C-alpha cells in the first residue's frame, strides 16, 4: 500500500543560526509512523521535540531532508497549502490550552469545522459528538474562563478531533495539569485512538504520558537515540 506510512521523515535536519555558529536542533531524523499509532517523542528540554512536531505539523519547514505527511511533501507546500493540510488533517493540542476566550466551549470546538465550511446542522452534531468524547457535552455553553485546567484541555482535545483528523499532535499536553487530570485526558485520547483510529504523536517528558505510549521515540540533542515499541502500562496504581 502506498500510504502504508502516514508520516515519513527522511534525513530531517533543522538548523538555527546562532550568531556566527549555528545550532542543529534536528540531526538527520528518519522516522516513519503508521496510521493509528499512539506514539511519543521523549527527551529532555531542548532536545528538539517541539521542532520535530512543528515540522510534521507543517508549522515549520526543515533546513534539509524531507517530510511526507499523507503523501504531501511538507517542505514544498505554499503557506496556503500547508494551512490547508493543517485545517483538514492535523489536530493540535498545546501545552497551554489556547482556547479562544470570547467564544463558548461549543464555539471553540466548532471553529475548525467553520473554516472547513461544514454546514450548520452537521457542525452541531459533530461538535456535540466531540464534546461527548471528552465528557463535556453539558458544558457547551460555558466560557473558557469558567473551566478548570483539565476541562480546558479536554475542550482542546475535542477541538483537535472534531474534524476527525488523521493525525493529532500533542506537545506536552499534560504539562499544566495535575496527575488526576493528566490521566483523565490520556484515557480520553487512548479511547479516541482506539475507536477512531486517529494517529497520535506526543512530545513529552512526563512519566505519566510515557506510561501510556505504545511507541517511545527518544530524542537527544536532535538525534533519535531509541525507538521502541512497548506495552503501555497505563495509570499508576
Amino acid at each position: 500500500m502506498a500510504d502504508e506510512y502516514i508520516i515519513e521523515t527522511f534525513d530531517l535536519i533543522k538548523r538555527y543560526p546562532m550568531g556566527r555558529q549555528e545550532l542543529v536542533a534536528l540531526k538527520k531524523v528518519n522516522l516513519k509512523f503508521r496510521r493509528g499509532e499512539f506514539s511519543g517523542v521523549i527527551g529532555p528540554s531542548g532536545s528538539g521535540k517541539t521542532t520535530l512536531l512543528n515540522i510534521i505539523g507543517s508549522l515549520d519547514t526543515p533546513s534539509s531532508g524531507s517530510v511526507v505527511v499523507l503523501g504531501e511533501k511538507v517542505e514544498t507546500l505554499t503557506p496556503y497549502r500547508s494551512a490547508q493540510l493543517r485545517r483538514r488533517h492535523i489536530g493540535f493540542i498545546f501545552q497551554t490550552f489556547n482556547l479562544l476566550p470570547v467564544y463558548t466551549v461549543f464555539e471553540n470546538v466548532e471553529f475548525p469545522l467553520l473554516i472547513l465550511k461544514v454546514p450548520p446542522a452537521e457542525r452541531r452534531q459533530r461538535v456535540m459528538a466531540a464534546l461527548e468524547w471528552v465528557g463535556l457535552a453539558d458544558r457547551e455553553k460555558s466560557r473558557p474562563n469558567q473551566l478548570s485546567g483539565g476541562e480546558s484541555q479536554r475542550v482542546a482535545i475535542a477541538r483537535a478531533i472534531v474534524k476527525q483528523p488523521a493525525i493529532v499532535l500533542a506537545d506536552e499536553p499534560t504539562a499544566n495539569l495535575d496527575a488526576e487530570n493528566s490521566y483523565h485526558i490520556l484515557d480520553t485520547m487512548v479511547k479516541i485512538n482506539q475507536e477512531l483510529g486517529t494517529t497520535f504523536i506526543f512530545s513529552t517528558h512526563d512519566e505519566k504520558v510515557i506510561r501510556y505510549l505504545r511507541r517511545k521515540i527518544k530524542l537527544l540533542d536532535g538525534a533519535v537515540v531509541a525507538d521502541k515499541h512497548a506495552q503501555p502500562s497505563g495509570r499508576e496504581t
Partner: protein
Amino acid sequence: MIKFIFRGVLRDRTRTLFPFLTVAIGVGLAVFLDAYLRGTTDSMFNTTARLVCGHLMVTTSAGAHAGEYATPELALLDVTPRQQELENSYPEVVWTPRIRFGGIIDIPDSTGMTRAQVPVSGMAVDLSPGGIEHKLLRLDRILVRGKTPRNTKQILLSEQLSQRLGLNPGDRLTLITMTADGGMAIADFTLAGTIRFGITALDRSVLLDSIADLRQTLGLPDGATEILGFFKNGVYNDRRAINISRHYNARHTHPDEFSPLLRPLREASGMGQLIDIVANATGLILTIFIIAMAVVLWNAGLINSLRRYNEIGIRLALGESSRDIYLSLLAEAFFIGLLGSTAGTLLGLGAGFYMQRVGLNISGMMRNATVLIDDVLRARIAPVTFFIGFIPGLFATLLGNAISGLAVFRRQTAQLTKEFSE
C-alpha cells in the same frame, strides 16, 4: 463564519468598544463641525445679505461702480417689469427692491423752528406688514420703541440717534434729500418707532422708510437703487449665484451705464475672498480631522492586533490561512466602522439638528461686536453632512485595520508553539 466573527466582536467589548467610540466620537464631531461651520458661515453671509446686498443684487452698472456711494441718481428704472423678469427666470429666488439714499433730517422745536439737523443714511423698502422685508430686516425684533409704520409718511429711525436727539415716537421731522435728477427734495414725516440692529455702523444713523413714500419724494416712480434677491431656502449658494449672474448679465449687455448688472453676494459684498477662505478652511479642518481619526484608528487597530496576537496564532495553527484571517479582520473593521459611523453620524446630526432648530444664543458675547453676525448661532445640516463623517469614519477604520492587520502575514507559524507556551 461571518456570524462567528460578529459574535466575537459583540462579546469582546474591550476590543470593540474603543474603536467604536473613537469612530463614533470622531464622526460625530466631524458631522457636527460640518453643520456648525455651515451654519456660522451662513449666518455671517446672511446678515450681510439681509442688510446690505442680498444673495444676488441687481443695480445699474454705474451704481455697481459707485458701490456704497451710489445715490438715487444712479437708480434702476422700470423696476416692476425687471423684477417680474427676474422672478420668472429664477424662481428659486425672491426679489425685493430697495432705495439707499443719504439725507439730512431736520427736527423742529415747538415753534416750528429748526432745533437740530443731522445726516442720516436712509434705506427705503417695502414696509408692508406681511411683506418680505418684514422678515429680512426682522422688523419685529429690531423695533425698540413705537410701532412699525402703518400709514404713509411714517418712518423708523435709529434708537441711538433718536435718544441723542430726544425724539419719541409720534414726533414730527423733515427729511431733506436730493431727487433723482439732482434737485432738492423735502418731505415731512412722523416718527413711527425706533430701531436697533445691534450693528454699530448701522445704528449710528439709519433711517427706514417705505419705498412707496420715498419714490414719491424722490420723483422716481418705479425706481430703486437695487433689487435684492434671496434664495428661498435661505441659504447662499455661491455656485448657483455665480451662474445666475452670468446668465442674467449675458442677457443684458447694453453698454449703457444705466443697464442692469446682477452680482452675486461674493462680488457685491467684497466677501468673495472670505467665502473662498471659509470654503477652504472648512475642507481643511475636516481633512485634518479625518486624518487624525485615521491615525487614531490605525493605532487602535495595532493595539487590537497586539491584544489578539494569541487568538490569531491559534487560528493560524488550526489551519486558517493568513489571507482568510486578514479578510476577517477587515470584515470586523467594516462592521465596527459601520456601527461607529452610524452612531457618530446620528450623534452629530442630533447635535447639529438641535443647533439648527434651537440655536445657541451668543448675544451676550456679541454685545460690542461690529461684525455682521447673528445673535443666535445656528447649524445647518446639508445633504453632505450625512456623509461627511460617515464615509471617512468607515474608511479610516478599514484603512487602520488594513494596515495593522498586515502583521498577520508576518507571523511565523513555526513560532506559534513557542508563543503559546509563554
